[in-house]
Every structure is written in C-alpha cells, then in structure tokens.
C-alpha cells in the first residue's frame, strides 16, 4: 500500500480532537482513549485511507499529551514538573517529552491495532 501524505494529515487532524474529546471526559479509565483510537484505526481501513498507522498515531498522541502537559503547566503555573523530573532522574522539561512519548506510543499502537484488525480486499 502506498502511503498518502494527505490521508496521513487527515488522520492526524481527526485524531487530535478525538483524543481530546475522550480524555476530557471524567470518570472513565485513563487508557480508554485507546479504544476510540483503535476504532478510528479500523475506520481508516474501511475508508481505505492510505495511512502509516503507527507513525501518524504516535505523532498525534505525542502532540496531544506533550501539548496538554505544556498547556496545563503554563496555565496552572505550579511546580510539579521539576519535582517529577527529580523523581525520574531527568530535567523537568524532559517530563513533558516523556509524557508525549507515552501518549504517542499508546496512540500509535492503538491506531495500528485498529487499522490491522480490518483487512479490505481489492474486490
């Protein structure tokens, strides 16, 4: 399958509000957004979007998690990042990157899983 940059961008742009929408819903398990992303991954297969599932998912997850961490840190103005950094033996800003990587890995893997679940034949 030839990857389409346009489909990748489309998927990326859909994923960001999708993750945000699910994550801002309280009282559901923290990881539940992977289900939504997985279903979206299956949908991209059905829609025959030519996407690089893991990479696109990873980037979307990274942007949402790291971006949200950055946003909350600056709007809330507290001091927790540096302290968590000391706990994890990394500088404070790296904690934001770590958060992004976790979001990226989960989103990438979820999108890839969903995408792989559906096989669409040529006929």
């Amino acid at each position, binding site marked *: 399958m030839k990857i389409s940059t346009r489909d990748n961008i489309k998927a990326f742009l859909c994923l960001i509000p999708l993750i945000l929408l699910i*994550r*801002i819903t*309280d*009282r559901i398990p*923290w*990881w539940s957004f*992977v289900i939504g992303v*997985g279903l979206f991954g299956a949908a991209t*297969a*059905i829609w025959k979007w030519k996407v690089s599932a893991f990479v696109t998912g990873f980037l979307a997850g990274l942007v949402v*998690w790291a971006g*949200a*961490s950055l*946003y*909350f*840190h600056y709007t*809330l*103005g*507290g*001091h*927790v*990042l540096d*302290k*968590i*950094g*000391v*706990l*994890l033996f990394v500088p404070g800003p790296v*904690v934001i990157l*770590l*958060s992004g990587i*976790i*979001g990226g*890995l*989960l989103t990438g*893997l*979820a999108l*890839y*899983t*969903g995408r*792989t*679940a*559906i*096989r*669409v*034949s040529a*006929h």
Partner: protein
Amino acid sequence: MKRINIGFLFPLAALAILVCALSQQLFILPPLGKLLDPFIGAIQNEDDRPLQAKELTIPARELEAPVQVFFDERKVPHIYAQHTTDLYFAQGYVTAFFRLWQMDFGSYAAAGRLSEIFAKKEFLDYDRNQRRLGIMDAAQRSLKLIMADRETSAALNAYTRGVNAYIQQLDYRNMPLEYKLLGYQPELWTNLKSTLILKSMASRMTGYEEDLFMSKMILALGEERFNQLFPEYYPDAHPVMNTDRPAATAAAQYAKIPGYLNYAFLSANSVIAESAWNPRLGSNSWAVSGKMTASGFPILANDPHLNLSLPNVWMEMQLNAPGVNVYGVTIPGTPAIIIGFNENIAWGITNGADDVKDWYKLKISPDYRQYELDGKWLPLEVRRETIQRKGQPVFYDTVYSTLHGPIVFNKSFPGKDPDMADMALRWELHRPSNEFLTFIQLNKARNYREYKAAIWHYHCPLQNFTFAGKDNNIAIHHQGSMPLKWPGQGKFILDGTTSAHLYTQYVPADSLPQLLNPACNYVQSANQRPTYSNYAYYYNGYYNETRASRIEQLLSAKQQVDVDAMKAMQLDNVNAFTVMALPVLLANVKPAALSKAQQQTLAAFKQWNGSYDYDNKIARLYNLWWRNVKNDTWDELRNYRFFIKSPEDEVLLNLIQQDTHNAYFDRQHTPQREDAAEIITNAFITAFAENEQSRKEGRERWSDFHKVNLLHLTNLRAFSKMGLPVAGQQEALNAISANWGPSWRMIVELGDRPRAYGIYPGGQSGNPGSRYYDSFVDDWNKGKYYTLNFFMSLKEAKQQASGAWKLNNR
C-alpha cells in the same frame, strides 16, 4: 470486501501489556501512564484554582447551616460557622483539602500499617514495632473514653464527617500527588484515625528512653561516680516552678543502686540501639505580664521545636462559631486549635520531657504462657496482629502482654538490642485519656479559671502549658499524669516480678509544678526541670537547662519588653552554655603549645559572644573544640559497649573548673597523665587543623556547615528542601539543627484586640505541586514573621479576605 484480520491480536496484546505496565508501579517506577497523563496525572496537582477563586460554592451534606471559609493572602482559612458541629465539619473538610495525604499517612504510620503502602521489609519491622508498642490498642481504649464525652464526640464526629465529605468528592485527577505516585487511594477517615494522630504525637514527645543505659552505667561506674557524672539536678537551674529555691541540691537527690539491680538481673555488655530523638532539642515558651510590657498588656511567645518536615506538622487557621473565635495552628487530622489565642487568652506548649516510659524485666515460664508476679504465675495475655502487606502475603504477629504492658521484644522480634527481650513496657500513653477536650475548651476559654479547667483534662504527654490572659494573668503548668515514684523508680530497669515496682498513683493536680503571676512578672519553659530538688515528689526525665538559662538571662535583664524584643529573643542565636564554657576553656588553654596562627585565632574568641550567626567564622571552630574536649575526656566511658551518651556538658564544665586533675582527663592509650589544660589545648590544636582544612576549601562561615533539611514524610528528595544554610544552633533559643527546629514561631500581644505574629517552615498546602507547598520557608529562614490576620467579626473577614468558599447543603 472487509474481513477481520487475526493478525491484529499481536499489536492488541502489546497494547494491553503496555497499558497494564503504565498503570501500576514497576519496581521503583511509579505508574507512569497515569502519572504523566496530562488530563488527570501529576500536572493536574499544580491546580491551585480553588484557592485563588474569589468565590466558590462547595456542595456539602449534613450541615445545619451554610459555612463560610475566608482565605487571606497566605491561604490561611478563616472558618465562620453558625453551629459548633458545622465548625468542626468545615475544619475537617478544609484540612483534608490542604493536607489529606499527610494526615492519612500519619494515621497509617501510627497504626503500624506502612507495609500496606510500601513493599520493603523494613516497613514490616516498623509496623511490628509500632503494634507491639501498643499504639493502636491505646488509641482504641482512649477513643472509648473520648466518645463517652458529649462535647468531644460531637466535635470529633463532625470533623470526621467533614474529612469524608472531601474524600468522597475526590477523583483521580484531584487526588493528592503522593497517592498517584505510590499507587493507592485514600480510605475513609475515622475517629480512630484522629485519635491515632494524637497518640502518635504523644509517642514522639515521650518515646525517648535510656533506662537500660542508665542501669548499666550505674552498675559499671558505682554509685558515687554515677552521681557525679549523671546528677539529677544542677545548682544553676532555672526550673519551670522557680519559687522556693533550696540551699543545696545534689545531695538531696543521690541515686542509689536499687537492690534488685545487678549484672545477673541484666545481661551485660550488649549494644544499645541509638534513638533518633535528641533530648537536647526542645521548645521555648514564655509569657510576660503587662507590668513589664510597653503596651501594658501581656505577651506570650512560643516556638515548639519538632522534626521539620514537608508538609509541616502544623497548619494555620482561624475557627469562628458562637462562643468561639480562635486562631492558631492545628495538627492535620485532629479537631480544634492546638497552639494559639483568642480575644481573651493565649497559650503555648513545650514538652515536659519527663520519663513516663518504663521497662520491667519479667520472669516468663519456658512455654511462654505465664509470668511471675509476687510469687504467683499469671497467664500472659495474647493478641494476634494482622499486618496486610503490599504485594505479599499477610503477616501475623503474636504480641504478649502482662499487667505492666506489652512485651515489645522477644525471640520472634528481637529488635536491635537482645537485652530488651522479654521486658514489659509501661507507658503513660497506654492509659485512656481525652486530650482533645483540653484543646476544644482552651479554644473558647476566656480567663485563667477556664484555661485551668481545660488543661485539667490533659494527661499524656506531660507538657508545659504557658498562659497569658487579657486581664493580665500569666501562668505556667507542668501538666499531665505524673506517676508517684520512689527515688530512682523508672530511671533504671524495674523488676517485673514484684507489684511493688508498679506505680498506681499520680501526683495530685494541685501539686503539679505550676506558677501564677510570679513576682518576676514572667513565666518560662524550655524543657528544663520542672522544679528544684526540694519538690515533694520524685520524677526523672530528659531535661535541658541551656535555653531556659538564656531566657532567664534575657528576661531578667529587661525592665520593659515589646513584640520586637520577643522576636529578637526567639531568633537569638546565643548558646548560653557556650558563653559559660568559653572563658573556662580560654583560661585553661596553654598558649606556649600553640603556633602564632593558633594564638591569633584564640584571641578572636575573646571577642565572640557565643552567637551562632549566619556569617560567623568562629562558631564552627568552637564546636569542634568542645566536641574534642568531650571526646578526649569521656574516652573511658566510650569503651563500654553499651555507651550511648556522655554526661551532660554542665558536668564536664564543672569538672574542668573544680578538679582539673580528675582521672577522666587522663586520655587512655597515652603514656603520660593528662590534665584538663592538656586536654583543652590538644583539643584546640586538633580542631584548628580540621577547621583550617575546611577554610582552604572555602567553607568558613557557620552557615557553610549548619544546614537544615525539610524532608518530605516519604523521604523523597524531590518533595523536600535539602541543605538550607541557617543561623542558630540546637541549644540556642533559635534551636535549629539538621532536621529539628522551631516548627512554629508565634508571638501574641493581648489587648483590646490581639496583635499576633507567626511563621512556620512550610506552606499551607500539603500538595508538592502547589505554589503554597513551601511558600513560607525562605521567610522563616530569614527570621521574618507574618502578621496573623485575626478577624474579630464576620464583617472584617469579608472585607479583608482575598477569596472565599461557601459550604452549602446540596
């Protein structure tokens, strides 16, 4: 055509494993996925918006009427309720908002439940020790007494409901950070937890002991030398009750080797575990009558010295309801204000430092079912402790007890010292008591009579209560259950086979050491002995005279004082003992044995006033010098395997002055016989060399060496403030040492409206992510005070508050 591809199961499995791994603790790593999730994780703990809101309505249940909580700039809550139960409900709610994890963790630690949170084996040992000490048992028995009192039970029930109202509103996002890190959740608060916090404080105040050490010391040294080195009283003491000074002291309190105490009774030559508590660290409190203040109104000052931690042990607040309007500090987890003031009175507390923890050597049958008492064999009581452990099977511990109390150490739990095995512990903390009532009543007391009635309920630990009333009464009480003992009883290990060693009576309340409006116009306590040696009853303890002596020096030298003078006293860095010892050292040192540089340094000492100021360049050298003098003098004692502490500094100074050729000055392992002058000279030369080394490394000021650590309760460095350079010294009034010091400085001048100042090393919030977590620390270290906003009316509170909450029934 669409088909399900089985191949997706592999990434699905990988995803599931990843989610599981990120949801729980892995080795030392916290649950990273949840923790770093920006929507619910650690970053959300930076959220201080509820504290910054101008107005916030919080739905609550069970209130009789709405409660208003006003916050000032420092986020001190001022709670205004229309009913007393609502007041304590709101206190519980607000305290939980600020400090839930701290109070919950404190209750786990007191109950011996840390294994439920931490998997390491040392926590199992801690829990077993805590349970064997009988803290939980004592709390349960006290709670029965507490619940039988209508006023206390109503307050405690309301407080508990308030804490639980907060807990029930929590979700993962706004849960305290420590729960997220350690991977557990808060459980509902109970009255028992509050009682455990109180017992934990009593344990901290009375947990120190040296009965076995003293028993071995008196056997090793003999009566005469023991009394010379470890006297009960000092001639220059300034006790809490400083009237009726006797002509002679020491002879009246000569400790004799009790008849039962011999090497067969104790098995000698074992190593005694060192205690973390340092009895030389304590608290200061004094009250000055209006007759010697500039304003004409009395002033009360108090700075309790405790383990300095983050979050701080105290939390500031004002409580207002019909019949009560009080400001001060509370211990999170307990209702009411513990140290503080209202419109009419102010009170302070220091530790009484009496020995109320005694050990009885038992004779136990070989099958460990009976023990001997007065020639009869009585059955041992047995209870089974169930210790839940994180990720491991439940641990069951069997604890035996006698009439005296629990057997803490035995074959199955030997502790660090085999000689403590099979001894029963008798501890005042075990007796049921209701200290909550003291504070509930103190909060609303209007005069000396009501203050005295309130402290009458206080039993354990023995504390010095300092009092000042708007009507110009000042008073001090050494208050608590003080057992009636025969001389020496409890100083040494007691014989558990005879009931004659069990005390059953207590010093009558009216005979406890106390003073009301003394002629000197001030009262003071700083963990010194409560009386002179002519007191009618025997007692012993772990007292310290140095700070009391300094307070006496300063107050007796003044004709008139004001609030600024009180601040200067609390921040005074002078060690009164150093002031006494330095001229003696200088008089004894042999200049001929010193180099020119050493002589010049010595000359600088003549200009020093014994003040451990931040930039002082000579204080550290003196400390090294005195340490060396002590080590070289008491080297004989250090040879005892059970050695844990040298005689008091006053004893050594007296020896230098009175008996310079005493055999203790002769250093072991040297062929010649030294005297005090040689010891002092050699000690100076060694100290000088050590100090020079540091000076070359660029460390010379006192603050380069004197640093304080504010450790988070989990010891996590990330949540602590480590290595803060500070002025002061452990025996100065500004008694700061590595992790102990003034945990709350308070000065109150009563009058038409109280003027009060205070500060503690911490911040109102217990949340490490909050900007209010350690917001007072720098100012505390600089010796600043905050004006305490005591609102006299609801109108004032409304006008001056920077934010407000309204607790409303849903």
